[in-house]
């Protein structure tokens, strides 16, 4: 069994713009992505994670994780997302080196 090195990009941002970010990810040619519900705190204040009634639901966070095979593509995703959204919407992004099984999936 061989493992191949790959890059994981993580984007934590407002749920409201998740769709737009996924579009960027697809345009950049990633083979897929994973989304999770999140909450948290940052420079734009606190975001809800509880299942308590929130009059405004769209203002919680999501954590999107994308695995790509080369770092340039990873950086390009991060850059495009930051340019498109992070002046006006809350969000952070980072990357991490990982080792994947089944390279053909990515």
């Amino acid at each position: 069994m061989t493992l191949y090195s790959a890059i994981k990009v993580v984007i934590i941002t407002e749920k409201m713009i998740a769709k737009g970010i996924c579009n960027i990810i697809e345009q950049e040619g990633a083979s897929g992505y994973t989304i999770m519900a999140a909450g948290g705190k940052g420079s734009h204040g606190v975001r809800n994670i509880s299942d308590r009634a929130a009059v405004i639901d769209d203002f919680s966070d999501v954590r999107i994780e994308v695995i790509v095979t080369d770092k340039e593509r990873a950086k390009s995703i991060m850059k495009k997302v930051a340019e498109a959204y992070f002046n006006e919407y809350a969000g952070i992004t980072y990357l991490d080196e990982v080792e994947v099984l089944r390279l053909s999936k990515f």
Partner: protein
Amino acid sequence: MEFIVDFLTRLLMQFQTPTLAFLIGGMLIAAVGSNLKIPNAVYQFIVFFLLMKIGLKGGIEIREANFNEMFLPALFSIIVGISIVIAGTLVFSLLSSVKREDGIATAGLFGAVSASSLAAAMVLLEEESIHFEAWVPALYPFMDIPALILAIVLANLHRQRQEGSGKKEIKVWPIVKDSLQGSALSALLLGIVLGLFAKPESILHSFYEPMFRGFLSVLMLVMGMEAYARLAELRRVAHWFAVYAFFAPIIHGLFAFGLGYLAHVWVGFSAGGVILFSVIAASNSDISGPPTLRAGIPSANPSSYIGSSTSIGTPVAIVICIPLFIALGQQVFSV
């Protein structure tokens, strides 16, 4: 003088109606730090339920409505929505401590309409046995959509001016679509369509009507809890927002009351209709408006408009404006 005494008595009595009592109870329970929570899924269902009921009932009655009657109030709704946004934008533009986009967005939210205030007003009118035309709630989009569109257009014009960039055309249709697709408005409109073209009387009577007040009590509890919870957010922005949020609903409502009175005289708009119309104007959007504005005016700080609307605007619209306009209506129309 007598009016004021009458109003205060009425206010005190209406605080005891389940509608207001649950709203105040919600604030109270949040203030004492209770862990009580109404699950988000239940809240979302309740909002759907209330608007579906209002829509079904409205749709059924519109079937036999005289469209001429509705024309003027609908036109007035558009006028009120637009006037509120223009007035609010002007007011905030006088305050140098307020970022222009924040002011415009807040004005937009107060021009838009709140489903919860609407439902509360309907129940309180019924409790006072004041009749209104069942199509009045259908005025909602006529006020809501123009207000949101205008706010987004104004903010974008402002931005283009600032950036000195060449005029980009601002597309209005996507904003209209976005509003109509919002969960609150689409539940209301779906209800109206079903009321108009289907025969939902049986479930209206067996399900949507009997549970309306009960679910409204739960919604009021949520609104009260949220109002308190978002005070923290409000504290982080200029206190002008709080001042605006307190007075705007009353002024907007009075303005609408005036127009409604004209419609009463000219086309026989009912007393209850005028009151409900005033509450619609006094209300500010709490469900669909904020995401629409966040998307349309991303540079505005959501804390400013959400804090002022949820924490002050909505409670004022429900707790002060509804009893006020009912009292006023009873005085003016002797109902």
